[in-house]
């Protein structure tokens, strides 16, 4: 199994190879782990590998095949899992010094479902600390590099998962998205990634950053791979009170390429002042969709301008509370030199958290403080409701909305790290969908003149992942993603 072969693998290709006995799942896992370790010297997509777990999962698949049983929809598929998603017995660090040695006693629901479906987890991928960032430079263990151009960031916060899939060291991956952390790295690395409807995939076992905005979602080289993985991890989980009862359609079966009559909205607020290269690629993609039979409408989402402020109030408020438990008392690293409890807290957290986490904890603590709550948090919740209403109104007219994923393609390491506001602006197109809780995804739509991938964002109605995936898949079939 050479690198070219491994890079080319999709879920279907793995399945065929196994069923035709061209290779066994254990052989694939072995080859893929070796390949991933070698590639990682260049990109550092993974933080650590879990070969024992991978081999035992692969063995189970091989045994099932040998017994003639159905090995599951992800049979033998090498998967990378973002290191904010818990894996029992396998270190889960959230790319934070505080959890550098944390070994969770249970699996996230998405991980359980993935393995029950035959998936083979190779290791845990790098990300921004506690998923806070847009470049994976906020990892306590060093940045991940973009496989397309190692001088550049892979995006973030799920940069490691995106890079692993893009460089082919995992066939698919799990990431998490709070304000764009799946879509933006997918677009930077030239692959597809899905942020499902809020509540579609259980958050149980996803280390919380901003609970009302956090999602687990898939990455894949193809739309179909995303559809298969999403179907496996989606659905009600009684351990997550916010997970939805909505039935999960057979997403891959619905990818029929027929998008005739689909109404697409282009929100004008997303195209003004957009870098021309990215804008041109998106408009060219829309032309292709028109040729496939879609109808295109100019629409308006007037509250868009308030989204960044709204998002950074809500997500920091929730983060300030969610990150309180990393206090040195139980499982985190601890400063043992402190003489008093308060001093222990200060030093443990002061030394443990990176700059971005601290910034967000302080901001979030401030906006929830007595006397400021109404002016910030409460007002942000009202704005959030207005943003959701904008989308609801738009979806009365159109079936899907298309926008850029990011105002710019992958930037260079260090380019924005000292300017948090500039970094926050890279989420400008992705956070509205997160605030509205609707499904959104990034699908590649070409490259800039300098060869950097650009992603197109598709947003759809609540729980209409099927419609969104069908549109993306039709675009992919028509060659829209070619060259990305």
């Amino acid at each position: 199994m050479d690198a070219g072969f491994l890079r080319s693998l999709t879920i279907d290709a793995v399945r065929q190879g196994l069923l035709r006995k061209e290779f066994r799942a254990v052989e694939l896992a072995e080859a893929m782990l070796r390949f991933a370790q070698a590639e990682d010297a260049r990109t550092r997509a993974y933080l650590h590998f879990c070969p024992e777990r991978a081999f035992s999962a692969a063995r189970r698949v091989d045994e099932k095949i040998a017994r003639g049983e159905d090995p599951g929809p992800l049979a033998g598929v090498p998967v990378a899992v973002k290191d904010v998603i818990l894996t029992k017995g396998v270190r889960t660090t959230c790319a934070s010094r505080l959890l550098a040695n944390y070994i969770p006693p249970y699996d996230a629901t998405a991980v359980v479902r993935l393995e029950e479906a035959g998936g083979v987890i190779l290791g845990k991928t790098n990300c921004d600390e506690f998923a806070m960032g847009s470049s994976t430079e906020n990892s306590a263990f060093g940045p991940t590099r973009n496989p397309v151009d190692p001088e550049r960031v892979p995006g973030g916060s799920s940069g490691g998962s995106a890079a692993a899939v893009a460089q082919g060291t995992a066939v698919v991956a799990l990431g998490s998205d709070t304000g764009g952390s799946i879509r933006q790295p997918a677009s930077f690395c030239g692959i597809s990634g899905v942020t499902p409807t809020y509540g579609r995939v259980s958050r149980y076992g996803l280390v919380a950053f901003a609970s009302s905005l956090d999602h687990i979602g898939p990455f894949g080289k193809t739309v179909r791979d995303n559809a298969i993985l999403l179907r496996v991890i989606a659905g009600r989980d009684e351990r997550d009170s916010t997970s939805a009862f909505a039935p999960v359609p057979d997403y891959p079966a619905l990818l029929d390429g027929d998008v005739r009559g689909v109404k697409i909205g282009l929100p004008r607020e997303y195209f003004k002042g957009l870098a021309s290269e990215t804008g041109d690629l998106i408009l060219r993609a829309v032309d292709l969709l028109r040729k496939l039979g879609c109808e295109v409408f100019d629409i308006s989402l007037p509250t868009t301008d308030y989204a960044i402020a709204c998002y950074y109030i809500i997500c920091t408020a929730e983060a300030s509370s969610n990150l309180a438990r990393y206090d040195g008392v139980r499982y985190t690293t601890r400063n043992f030199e402190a003489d008093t409890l308060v001093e222990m807290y200060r030093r443990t957290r002061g030394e443990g958290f990176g700059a971005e986490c601290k910034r967000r904890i302080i901001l979030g603590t401030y906006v929830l403080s007595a006397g400021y709550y109404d002016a910030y948090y409460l007002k942000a919740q009202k704005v959030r409701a207005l943003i959701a209403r904008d989308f609801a109104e738009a979806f009365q007219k159109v079936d899907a909305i298309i926008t850029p994923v990011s105002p710019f393609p992958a930037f260079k390491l260090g380019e924005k790290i000292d300017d948090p506001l500039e970094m926050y602006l890279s989420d400008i197109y992705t956070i509205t969908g997160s605030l509205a809780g609707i499904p959104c995804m990034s699908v590649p739509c070409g490259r800039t003149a300098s060869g950097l991938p650009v992603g197109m964002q598709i947003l759809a109605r609540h729980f209409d992942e099927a419609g969104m995936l069908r549109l993306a898949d039709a675009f992919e079939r028509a060659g829209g993603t070619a060259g990305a």
Partner: protein
Amino acid sequence: MSSTAATLAPPEVLARYEAVIGLEVHVQLATRTKIFCGCPTSFGAPPNTNVCPVCLGLPGALPVLNRRAVEMAVKAALALNCTVRPVSRLARKNYFYPDLPKGYQISQYDEPLAEGGWVEIFVNGTRKRIGVTRVHIEDDAGKSLHEGFEDSDRYTYVDLNRCGTPLIEIVSEPDLRSSEEAYAYLTELKLLMQYIEVSTCDMEKGHLRCDANVSVRPRGAETFGTKTEVKNLNSFRFLKAALDYEIARQVAILENGGAIVQETRLYNPDTGETMGMRTKEYAHDYRYFPEPDLLPLRISEEWRERIRAEMPELPSQKRARFVEQYGLREYDAQVLTLSRDLSDYFERAAAVSGDPRGTANWVMGDLLGALKAEGKEIPESPVSAEQLGELVALISRGEISGKLAKEIFAKMWATGDSARTIMEREGLRQISDAALIEKIIEEVLAANPKQVESYRSGKSGVLGFLVGQVMKATRGQANPALVNELLRKKLG
């Protein structure tokens, strides 16, 4: 009043002031499992064993609200005459403490479960309604163990078994005007919660915890004085002593021209005093916000009414019925409803005896006395309700005298045998044979000619002496009513 309080302000000074008290009471709900996970709530397990990722606040864990805990909380709210909100919200109360593993408590803030109720108390012969501001649900924290370990001088140990135990907090209006009223209010709350079986209210196990907001003002004043919050009132005795102390302390300050500082004070049962806590350390800004991991709590009318329909008879209703149905005095009804065990015992005994008032006297007198002497509770009584009912029936039918009954009761208590068994075994049956009694009377009259003479000359008081002589001669077994009747007849 405690002596400590008396040294602060003499009674005549205190009498010029009025206390204004509100209580915040935490009640542990008697669910089998915790409020957000399936761990048992059982008391006394080895430290850190009744725990799971959810109640340990491990990364990635999420709460799922225990339906049974909600039902119990609604039941409590209804028993407190509160209005239950159709939609309420859980909220995070953020603060750092080692026994709080999530870094926040999940409680309720501006949209509590229920509001606007009341509780009726009975103090010094008068009834009074105490307003209940709100009832909300929340999870408990763990326990910090500061003592009892070899290295307790350097370390605090934490036991997280209690984390996630379901609680309700019941906040009263500032309607209480004395430590006696506060005591009566807490007693009534405890009784209510036990009656409706939402809590065992075992104070030693921390199932009932109480903080008080206290201020004083000159009698007749309209406005409230500056209040202090007194914590650690975790027994009925502490509650009264701490309030008396705090009231006297505040009065003494005002009498000396000082001003009350708004602060949190901790009651120290060893000294009987309240001490100010360092305000800097406890000046919390809890940064409440709606708990994003839980959906708004919806309680449909149908669900609420189903819970209401399951409500047993409440103590106040039972008291009224006891007065009405059994003709008991108000005070007796109050005593007999002090626990559900006691009122059930009384009703079962009264059903057997057919004499409710006689039964009430026996239950409140001999039974409670004997229980108290041995430190026992009703369920441990060696004399069952049915046995006591039989004893009372024997008295009211005139088969035994009250005096004999007391003797028999003592034997029942010691052996657990029924009254009849004891009477038969010991030949204690009452003598109601008129011929036999007449014979004894004749002997007594013959032996006491002087007394017979003085009776006949008009000194009717002598009759008692003669009755006593007859009773003595029969070892107390003669039917006293019959003796009386026959004696009168004989003496003409």
